[in-house]
């Protein structure tokens, strides 16, 4: 964004300060002579009304500059310049939380730290045992580390201190000593980066470190929840300690989970340690120095480029013969590691320096060329340019003489330097749009006043500039006129105009891409940030189509029918299609599979299946196989007449069936989840079962070409097994169906469905995030909201979406209908006639939306297509940020990624007319979607 637009004056500043010799500034009562400077008088007049305030702006240049200047004079280097390189980069790091026994006689100590640079502040409080562990409170004085500041009466802010980790890396951390007697139930905190004003939370909520057992489990504990599996004994010791100290507080009602935990506790007496990844935009200041020397022997120019940029640095370079600065490839020889780049430029990797960071390169340039042009490229595809242009180094002596003649000017104000001063805080102030959480898991809250600062500094800055320009002209006019000077003045004014225009431009089109993306180089398509694909999210930009309904098996040739729709579906904008269950099945719909390796189903035979997968691949749509892993119908009866003996390639016996369903008399272990009672549930704890299933999935991937999975009834077994299967089959995308009932009180759906979504989140968590899950919660809440006109339900008590999508958007696969809920079954049908409101919601919100086949090929088709193309056009993805702007009885409205606004419900809403310009993009019954123009 702004980084680039800042460059011009920064760039100048360096140039100028070298160029001018230092002379203290005095006004000479010059005899003004009419013959020489009408023009300048004119300038002066025009400036004379600007109020002058800062005479100190006109400072003599620093001695270092002079030194450089002199050294340059004394060598045969006829050009040397240092260009600042500013760039922003997303760095990944971690927040870690450690609870251990400190050195001082066994007191427990909580350490919170972060390994990214920044001005980190821990914003924290405690919840006391008495009030159920939910409220924030200030800790007792003795717990507060030095430097803590109380915030109102409920929190403390403690700055993190710099220290070194055991590996010697710099990190920031704060240690809090726990006082055993203080009856503290938990420590709550968020981490704040004062530099960027960003808040770092834990899955969108406060971090919560429980320090006593009787804490209500609200699903947001950092460690307790998973501790019995992942971090054995996470909080065990402390809890025990506290229990001993305050036996009276012990609470008898422990869930089975907790008792398992307790078992673990006794085994381990260590604290816990957890890390959470975070990403942050960090500004880096580097520079590149270019010097040009004439080689006395060959009369060639030797050009030396040196930079302190870390890592691999490539220089794209060329030469030009005239002022048009047209790139040309110079004649060989070229430096080592040089390749020609599309016949327009050369790309050379700079050689790392012997010692220290940075790298350099030496280029020999023939005589007779006008200039040397280059841009720098970092290994990550970031292009660094000079004021949005190529770096330009003049090569001929004449141009350098010109430059020198300018340097001879006896007096000049050091305005550019002032500019740079004014600018530095400015550039630091402008928060990158991208500084917003890349990853919603570490949702950051941008601080409001950062904007205000920006504004203030902008106007202060421009006023400063105007003063400076005025002073410059004053100066010039008070001196003997030189043409060059007026040109200098013009140039700097033009630059100022450019800068202001760039600023205005930036705001007018507020959705402008960032620096890296903007730095489009003429010989390469704009580098897209590499898309990270994970099976939980795909690329993050997926839009699913459920490619069948409950009736699709009836024709017996569904694959053939669907095949014809492939290009149509692709043109609508779908990226993934969910195909029906492919295996031989007891029920025609395919959800009662028997022989997993027999892929002739009522939807078509195996060849037709392969064909349709191929065709979808041709149109660019990935395919999901619907796999039923929870249960499998048997081929044969056992000696009791119970159907639990399998045939086919996977000829399992009753050990493959879970033991806790009396209907099927399995001899396996107890089920790790809920049972599906219509068929034998598979015991995934059996190694041979898992091995067979892994192989089967791999076979499906290879043989059929499926790209991923829709996993049926994953409530039936532990998510950890799913993780196992997914790691083995490496799908592009996977989504599980974890469907259980929402929370109701007296027949009325609760507003708070945190329990429901937590169960889904837990499952995703168990898969280690390798799979997403259908966001049943969102569907349920949409039902109530739309059906009963209770749109307020669409915001949870923290102002976020109330479904899974509010907590873990990247793993939430949103939908409003599927073959079970709707179609001809209608187990839980979406409110009739309001489907488009549902789609307006899920297709504009984060998460990965799914559109049901019946809806695509209905009268909703064009509206759905419009919403999908809007989603794609605005690059809404599964991690997009959503800001709910209205959640009232009859209307819900939200702004997504600051570029799409949506309202559903009959009530009125218009997006705010702030810096963005909204235009209505899609409209239908009781919904409207806007996007920012441009």
């Amino acid at each position: 964004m702004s980084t680039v637009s800042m460059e011009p004056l920064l760039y100048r500043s360096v140039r100028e300060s070298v160029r001018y010799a230092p002379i203290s500034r005095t006004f000479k009562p010059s005899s003004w002579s009419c013959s020489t400077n009408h023009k300048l008088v004119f300038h002066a007049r025009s400036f004379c009304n600007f109020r002058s305030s800062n005479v100190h702006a006109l400072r003599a240049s620093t001695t270092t500059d002079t030194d450089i200047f002199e050294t340059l004079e004394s060598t045969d280097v006829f050009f040397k310049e240092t260009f600042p390189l500013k760039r922003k980069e997303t760095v990944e790091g971690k927040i870690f939380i450690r609870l251990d026994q400190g050195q001082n006689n066994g007191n427990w100590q909580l350490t919170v730290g972060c390994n990214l640079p920044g001005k980190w502040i821990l914003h924290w409080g405690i919840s006391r045992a008495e009030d159920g562990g939910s409220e924030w409170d200030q800790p007792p004085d003795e717990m507060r580390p030095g430097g803590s500041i109380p915030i109102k009466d409920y929190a403390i802010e403690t700055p993190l201190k710099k220290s070194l980790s055991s590996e010697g890396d710099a990190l920031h951390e704060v240690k809090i000593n726990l006082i055993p007697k203080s009856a503290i139930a938990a420590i709550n905190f968020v981490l704040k980066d004062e530099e960027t004003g960003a808040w770092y939370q834990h899955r969108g909520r406060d971090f919560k470190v429980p320090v006593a057992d009787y804490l209500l489990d609200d699903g947001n504990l950092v460690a307790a929840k998973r501790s019995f599996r992942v971090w054995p004994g996470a909080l065990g010791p402390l809890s025990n300690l506290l229990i001993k100290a305050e036996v009276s507080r012990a609470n008898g009602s422990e869930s089975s989970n907790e008792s398992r935990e307790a078992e673990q506790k006794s085994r381990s007496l260590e604290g816990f340690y957890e890390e959470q990844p975070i990403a942050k935009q960090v500004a880096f200041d580097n520079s590149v120095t270019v010097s040009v020397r004439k080689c006395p022997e060959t009369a060639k120019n030797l050009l030396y480029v040196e930079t302190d940029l870390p890592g691999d640095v490539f220089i794209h370079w060329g030469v030009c013969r005239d002022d048009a600065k047209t790139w040309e490839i110079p004649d060989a020889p070229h430096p080592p590691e040089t390749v020609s780049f599309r016949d327009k430029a050369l790309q050379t990797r700079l050689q790392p320096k012997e010692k220290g960071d940075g790298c350099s390169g030496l280029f020999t340039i023939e005589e007779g060329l006008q200039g040397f042009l280059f841009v720098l490229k970092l290994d990550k595809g970031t292009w660094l340019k000079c004021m949005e242009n190529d770096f330009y180094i003049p090569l001929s002596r004449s141009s350098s003489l010109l430059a020198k003649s300018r340097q001879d000017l006896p007096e000049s104000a050091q305005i550019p330097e002032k500019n740079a001063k004014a600018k530095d805080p400015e550039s630091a102030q402008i928060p990158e749009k991208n500084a917003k959480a890349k990853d919603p898991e570490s949702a950051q809250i941008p601080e409001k006043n950062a904007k205000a600062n920006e504004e203030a500094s902008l106007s202060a800055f421009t006023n400063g500039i105007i003063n400076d320009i005025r002073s410059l002209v004053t100066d010039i006019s008070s001196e003997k006129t030189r043409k060059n000077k007026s040109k200098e003045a013009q140039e700097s004014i033009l630059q100022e105009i450019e800068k202001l225009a760039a600023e205005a431009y930036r705001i007018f089109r507020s959705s402008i891409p960032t620096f890296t993306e903007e730095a489009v180089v003429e010989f390469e398509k704009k580098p897209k940030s590499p898309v990270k694909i994970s099976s939980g999210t795909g690329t993050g930009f997926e839009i699913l189509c459920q490619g069948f309904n409950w009736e699709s098996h009836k024709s017996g040739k569904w694959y053939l029918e669907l095949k014809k729709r492939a290009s149509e579906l692709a043109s609508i904008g779908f990226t993934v299609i969910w195909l029906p269950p492919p295996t031989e099945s007891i029920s025609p719909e395919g959800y009662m599979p028997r022989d997993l390796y027999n892929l002739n189903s009522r939807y078509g035979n195996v060849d037709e299946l392969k064909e349709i997968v191929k065709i979808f691949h041709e149109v660019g749509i990935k395919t999901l196989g619907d796999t039923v892993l929870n249960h499998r119908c048997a081929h044969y009866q056992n000696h009791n007449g119970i159907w639990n003996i399998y045939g086919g390639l996977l000829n399992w016996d009753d050990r493959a069936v879970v033991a806790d369903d009396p209907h099927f008399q399995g001899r396996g272990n107890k089920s790790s989840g809920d049972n599906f009672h219509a068929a034998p549930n598979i015991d995934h704890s059996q190694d041979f079962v898992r091995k067979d299933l892994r192989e089967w999935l791999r076979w499906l991937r290879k043989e059929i070409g499926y790209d991923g999975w829709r996993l049926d009834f994953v409530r039936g077994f532990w998510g950890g097994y799913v993780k196992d299967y997914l790691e083995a089959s490496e799908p592009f995308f996977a989504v599980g169906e974890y469907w259980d009932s929402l929370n109701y009180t007296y027949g009325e759906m609760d507003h708070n469905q945190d329990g429901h979504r937590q169960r889904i989140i837990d499952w995703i968590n168990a898969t280690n995030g390798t799979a997403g899950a259908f966001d049943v919660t969102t569907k349920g809440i949409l039902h109530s909201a739309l059906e009963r006109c209770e749109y307020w339900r669409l915001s949870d008590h923290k102002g976020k979406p109330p479904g899974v999508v509010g907590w873990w958007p990247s793993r939430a696969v949103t939908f409003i209908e599927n073959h079970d809920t709707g179609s001809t079954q209608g187990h839980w049908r979406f409110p009739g006639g309001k489907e488009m409101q549902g789609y307006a919601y899920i297709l504009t919100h984060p998460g990965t939306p799914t559109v049901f086949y019946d809806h695509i090929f209905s009268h909703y088709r064009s509206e759905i297509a419009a919403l999908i193309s809007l989603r794609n056009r605005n690059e809404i993805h599964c991690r997009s940020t959503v800001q709910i702007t209205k959640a009232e009885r009859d209307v819900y409205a939200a702004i997504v990624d600051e570029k799409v606004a949506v309202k559903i419900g009959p009530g009125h809403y218009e997006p705010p007319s702030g810096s963005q310009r909204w235009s209505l993009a899609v409209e239908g019954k009781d919904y409207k979607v806007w996007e920012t123009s441009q």
Partner: protein
Amino acid sequence: MEVSVIGCSQAKIGKTELAYRELGCFDPKGVSKAFSAKSRVCFSPSTRWRKAGIRFTLRAVQSEAVRSEKVAASSRISRSRDGVRLFVGLPLDSVSDCNTVNHARAIAAGLKALKLLGVEGVELPVWWGIVEKEAMGKYEWSGYLALAKMVQDAGLKLHVSLSFHASKRPKIPLPEWVSRIGESNPNIFFTDRAGQHYKECLSLAVDDLPVLDGRTPIQVYHEFCESFKSSFSPFMGSTLTGISMGLGPDGELRYPSHHMLTKSKQIPGVGEFQCYDKNMLGILKQHAEATGNPLWGLGGPHDVPTYDQSPNSNNFFRDNGGSWDSLYGDFFLSWYSNQLISHGNLLLSLAASTFSESAATVCGKIPLMHSWYKTRSHPSELTAGYYNTTTRDGYEVVAEMFARNSCKMILPGMDLSDEHQSRASLSSPELLLADIKKACRKHGVEVCGQNSSASMAPGGFQQIKKNLLGENIVDLFSYQRMGAYFFSPEHFPSFTQFVRSLNQPELHSDDLPEEEEETAHSLNVSSEASVHMQAV
């Protein structure tokens, strides 16, 4: 203007800063001091002075008493010696419908940039539908006043366009209460042959009918103008130097004859006559009866093409033997265009009398209906209400009407050149522009230029320059319009280039180093070259 250049108040310099003492300026009329005290605007001394310089010219042009008084009040800023004062339009939606300034920071930065660039001022559309949004007589000027303050602080002039129409993009509707009235009485809108209403502005037929809750639109416009005048009195004449009166669709004096055109079509059709609302038909009927041809008053011509069609697809506009060239044609077209002109006259005289004291120039905008200009009948102009054909000059009477009201004429399309028009549309913006300019020159009407397209037409800047520098009838140009595109890297540099070339046509020679010795170079040239810097 032959006058010498250095016009800076010695007295002021002495007061403000010692540093300027050696500048050796003189104060031509002794006015600078007086003005500089009250004005925060940087250049008021010089501009005032330049105003004074042009006074005679203006008198010569404007002979009417009421007008010359205004001129004497030094309301007018003459063009600087090298021609044209440049304005830039602010975004259409600069003020939101809840009366806040949209993209205030962008506009602030933009204003500074324009100021540095040497632009004289900005044009600001003031929307009826925003100011008088809720109820008749309930005005809300706060957003516009805030913006005017920003403009003043930036040291720029302000030219306000009172817009009594609605805008499609960005969506700015008519006042809610007007739309409500329109719902129940669609006859207040222009209507075409098919009965489709054009709901972006009121039909000129209701100008004097009490259709707005018992008041006539003219009364409502008048009260609006009065309210504007009193609200903006602090800016009047200092910052606020021009007011353009909205005259119809898109603010232009015309019928909405082309509103149903499909945008994608390469060649615009001829448009349709818009005389089918109840009141228009009534007037037509009366007129026909009064002129003894009652049968001609039953409706518009029956043999016209539809919006998208070309002139020859029906009989009316045919080059040879088309009904336009008949007695009936003349009857209808005269009536149709006279309605428009008297509507324009009504509004402009209203504006002129309302703002006569206020030291701001009043303008009105007419369209440049340039397609089909090369046919004999000029159908696009006819449907828009300009009875201008190869056999009849339709702009003479329009210019005369502007002159009568001492109003400036805003002419769009200065960026359009014939060579970039589609051949098949038989269009000629340049010839039409010349026609209109000629009429204006004849009646002493000053012209304020505008470009037509949001994104610059190919060769647009050159064409504008050609229009501005060639002759002296255009002394002000209002460039449309600030926004993301305006400041984009694709556009802004060329705009900068354009401004510089306008203001300092000899800059490039200035670049040549050998000129350095040329100290005896004429005063005029160097001053010219400095105009740009001066504005900075």
